[in-house]
């Protein structure tokens, strides 16, 4: 019993955390090459080479950093990604943390991510890193509400805040069809949470790397892995909330989850490569004035559809 309920889920979550981060790095390189970026080595090997290089590189320090917080932030971000992954149900029974309030816990992961990313930029005590951190807080506080409304939308037909119940409620029709606005809005949240591609305001090149501009060596490795792991955790939640989770014919539940998560990741990474970065000052207005009302519409849509049945 303890093997099935604890040891197996823990192994699954940790394996997906590491394997998922690696596959994000591989997929991103493959997509970049397909889109015409100059080919930089073998896509399967180059993430490992870069990781090994970061591991032996000297870790940079600034003149007067908040040393402990600086080392804590990447580890905490990784822990948040692990928490998110722990909520993802792989089948009806294989789920690490099947809380009655797992949607609420995911909401708190999103909110705490803002704190951790700000901490990462703050503790370096360097201007560019701090600007990245302030920019991220503006973004993080703007996408938070969109995410909450969209997730409440999937909780309505399930009559529960439990992710397994949310998946079960999609037996007849997946939420991506039933609430068509939900998944696109939630993908924006995913790009924001990991400050990826168009929403990379925190670690962008115009700030010479932003919150990570002063970070090198092993701390940089943990930070990069945590970012990719957070993207994986997000894709797991998105697949459960909108793409029917483990449900599907022929294949077994966990395999369906892997397929759906890879599909979400492919879309996110492709978007990250083709959409240009938005201007930070415009992104706040856009999120509150355009995307938030759309999230309202999604919630009303979800509510009407849930009562109609």
């Amino acid at each position, binding site marked *: 019993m303890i093997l099935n309920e604890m040891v197996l889920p823990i192994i699954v979550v940790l394996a997906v955390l590491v394997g998922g981060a690696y596959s994000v790095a591989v997929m991103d390189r493959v997509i970049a090459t397909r889109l015409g970026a100059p080919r930089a080595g073998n896509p399967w090997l180059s993430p490992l080479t870069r990781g090994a290089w970061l591991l032996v590189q000297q870790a940079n320090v600034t003149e007067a950093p908040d040393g402990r917080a600086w080392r804590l932030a990447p580890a905490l971000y990784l822990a948040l990604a692990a928490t998110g992954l722990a909520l993802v149900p792989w089948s009806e029974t294989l789920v690490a943390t099947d809380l009655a309030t797992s949607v609420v816990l995911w909401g708190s992961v999103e909110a705490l991510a803002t704190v951790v990313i700000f901490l990462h930029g703050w503790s370096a005590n360097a201007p560019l890193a701090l600007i990245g951190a302030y920019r991220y807080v503006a973004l993080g506080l703007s996408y938070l509400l969109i995410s909450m409304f969209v997730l409440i939308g999937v909780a309505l037909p399930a*009559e529960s805040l439990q992710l397994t119940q949310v998946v079960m409620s999609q037996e007849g029709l997946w939420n991506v069809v039933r609430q068509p606005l939900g998944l696109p809005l939630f993908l924006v949240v995913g790009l924001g949470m990991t400050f990826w591609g168009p929403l990379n305001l925190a670690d962008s090149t115009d700030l010479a790397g932003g919150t990570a501009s002063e970070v090198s060596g092993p701390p940089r490795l943990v930070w990069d892995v945590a970012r990719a792991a957070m993207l994986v955790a997000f894709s797991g939640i998105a697949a459960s909330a909108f793409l029917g989770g483990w449900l599907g014919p022929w294949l077994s539940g966990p395999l369906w989850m892997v397929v759906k998560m890879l599909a979400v990741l492919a879309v996110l990474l492709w978007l990250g490569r083709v959409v240009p970065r938005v201007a930070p000052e415009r992104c706040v207005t856009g999120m509150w004035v355009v995307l938030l009302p759309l999230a309202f519409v999604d919630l009303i849509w979800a509510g009407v559809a849930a009562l109609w049945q």
Partner: protein
Amino acid sequence: MELLTLFIILLFALGAGWLVQWLPQRHSSMPTYPQRAPFLGGGSPDTHAWNRYHVRYYPMTLLLIAFEMEMMFMYPWAVVYVEEGLKAVMEMGMFLAILSVGIVYAWREGVFKWQ
């Protein structure tokens, strides 16, 4: 049981994140001071980065708090929504309508402009 599993996963991730940073660097020396100057694209900083700084989007963060409180009511509401039917629609509709007026007002006041 569920929370214990979550706690173990959290400990593993935190521990791994900390160990990977600490183990390879435990014997290496710190970079020299000229190397430790914050990067400013060639310039050198004449103040701490942790100065007082006017965050221009400050009113937006206050507006967010109003909505976050509203989410607190929305979580239990979502669970009983189908059961309560139209009554739940009305109640949340009124609540959201009032908050939306707040957004429109904040928009007019330029809260979402960040310059």
